[in-house]
């Protein structure tokens, strides 16, 4: 089923939203949130990408079958990023290796 066309007011609102999220990204980067920074930045960029895809690239007007490929692409990106991210986040041995420097005289 085809949906309504993207109208000019919708384009303007989408553009303003993108600007808003850009400021949010910049603001978040200045707050020094440590490990949360990457997650927040990725979250904001996902929202911005969805706005671009659905409004500016007119995906909102498409049938579900055509949207499915974008949804799947998004899921594959999530898969690549999440499994890759778990690697540096869990680079420690199980159980932890003994550290002779920490306890030189048992």
């Amino acid at each position, binding site marked *: 089923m085809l949906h309504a066309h993207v109208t000019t007011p919708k384009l303007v609102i989408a553009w303003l939203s993108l600007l808003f999220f850009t400021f949010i990204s910049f603001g978040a980067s200045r707050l020094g949130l440590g490990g949360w920074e990457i997650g927040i930045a990725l979250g904001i960029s996902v929202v911005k990408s969805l706005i671009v895809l659905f409004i500016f690239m007119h995906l909102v007007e498409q049938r579900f079958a055509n949207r499915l*490929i974008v949804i799947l692409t998004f899921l*594959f990106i999530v898969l690549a990023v999440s*499994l*890759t991210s*778990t690697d540096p986040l869990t680079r*420690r041995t199980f159980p932890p290796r003994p550290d002779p420097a920490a306890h030189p005289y048992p």
Partner: protein
Amino acid sequence: MSEATIDADLPAVDPRGAGAEEPDYLRAETSVRSWLLTKDHKRIAIMFYASVIVFLMLGGLFALILRTELLTPEKTIIDANTYNQMFTLHGVTMVWLFMIPAIPGAFGNFVLPLMLGAKDLAFPRINLASYYVYALSAIIMLTAMLAGGADTGWTFYVPYSSTSPTAVSWMGVGIFVNGVSSIMTALNFIVTTHTLRAKGLSWHRMPLFIWSIYGTSVIILFATPVLGMSLTLVALDHSFGLGIFDPRYGGDPVLFQHLFWFYSHPAVYIMMLPAFGVISEVVCSFSHNPPASYRAIAYSSLGIAFVGFFTWGHHMFVAGMSEFDAGIFGALSMFVAIFSAIKVFTWVATLRGGSISFATPMLYFLWFLFLFVFGGMTGVAVATQSLDVHWHDTYFVVAHFHFIMVGGTLTSFLAAAHYWFPKMFGKLYDERVGLLTSVAVFIGFVFTFLPQFLLGNAGMPRRYYSYPEQYQWLNVLSTGGAWLLGAGLLLTLANLVIALKWGRQAGPNPWGSRSFEWITASPPSKHNFESTPLVERSAYEYDLPEEVARARVPAR
């Protein structure tokens, strides 16, 4: 309903095949220009076919030189630098210029529209462009070879590839361009399958080859951009020292491996899924039996395409990846074996009760089955973390991936080359020579790679130029096998080339297949079908007599 009633209801069809009254696609136009600017999927398929054979020979020549060098522990014919560059060139040529485009480019292009009852692919101009982009990528890679080649191996691992003085950036650009061609072809196949199926040709009536090509196209679409991006980053690191993967600048070399294998492990299925499609067609045609379970074969293709994306980390068990991720990837990798086993059991079950004819393609099916099962089982072994630590970067891994990727792709490519030869060229090849060369190829292959399992298990590292003397007898065996394999392939080519000129005329359906590409004349006319066929049966109704089966797909 009696058969007489069926016959009475069905339209009369030309026994010479659809479009037999028109000149065939080879003779419709004969100028060089008509070939170079053709938008006919069959001619583009022939152009791909010729190119992949050239690259198979080139990659094979590199392999023979490498194997000959390894006849003795020290220098035999080439020096160490040339050896390093040659194994990179061998890998790059075989992976990107032969194995990935071979079956989709040559046979997918040719038979997919015929199987769907379409006059061409959805985007004929993009199809031609994809060939020229492929040719351009080959030129860039060959230029890189002439400019000194690359000595990184086909995996381009950083940090070596970002500092190597060889033509790594050029090679990366060549592979990037090659990926563009793959994406164009994949997109074309997906859109064609969705939009150009003949009337009545529902998804569950399609030949299984289409399912496998469709699955392959989906993987290409999702994975190839990641390869393009990663190699671009390596090229930028190499040329401008950006340091994306360089720890000195906060980069992470293991990140490159994540990105590279996110493409390159699914790429194994980009090579194997089309092979599965060919094998499914061959098994049904030469056992004159429908598949034991159509849905099992069709859906397991999609299953492999999906699960193939969860497994890339098993290439990195010893790279410095976390043990947690390694455990997850090891477990996930084994899921692929489930879908592969579904396929193997279904193919074997298809033979049951069939009227089996042992023509050359069927023999290649048997070789495929042996190599795929053997290679697949060693795949489960190398996905086991503790075993992989012992075998990593040894000849065991070389033997494993050659059994799966090369064994699978090559035997199915040769099965397809013989199976669709009458359809593509309207001639029959010499069956006795076909059987003989098939045996030579198989024995050559096994003698080349079986000793490498033993070499790897005994500890011989892959890619090494020299080795201790105790490994020599296995290397001699492997080199002898490689020369036999090379001779078998050359004789196969000679048999097919001779058949082009002197082969007997083939009818529209010499194998008695029920698949839809055999409805047309051999070779097909330029536009395949004058009018869109109306499909009233599935692609595997072997219980119907051939005339009735043909009449249920009336096409002019």
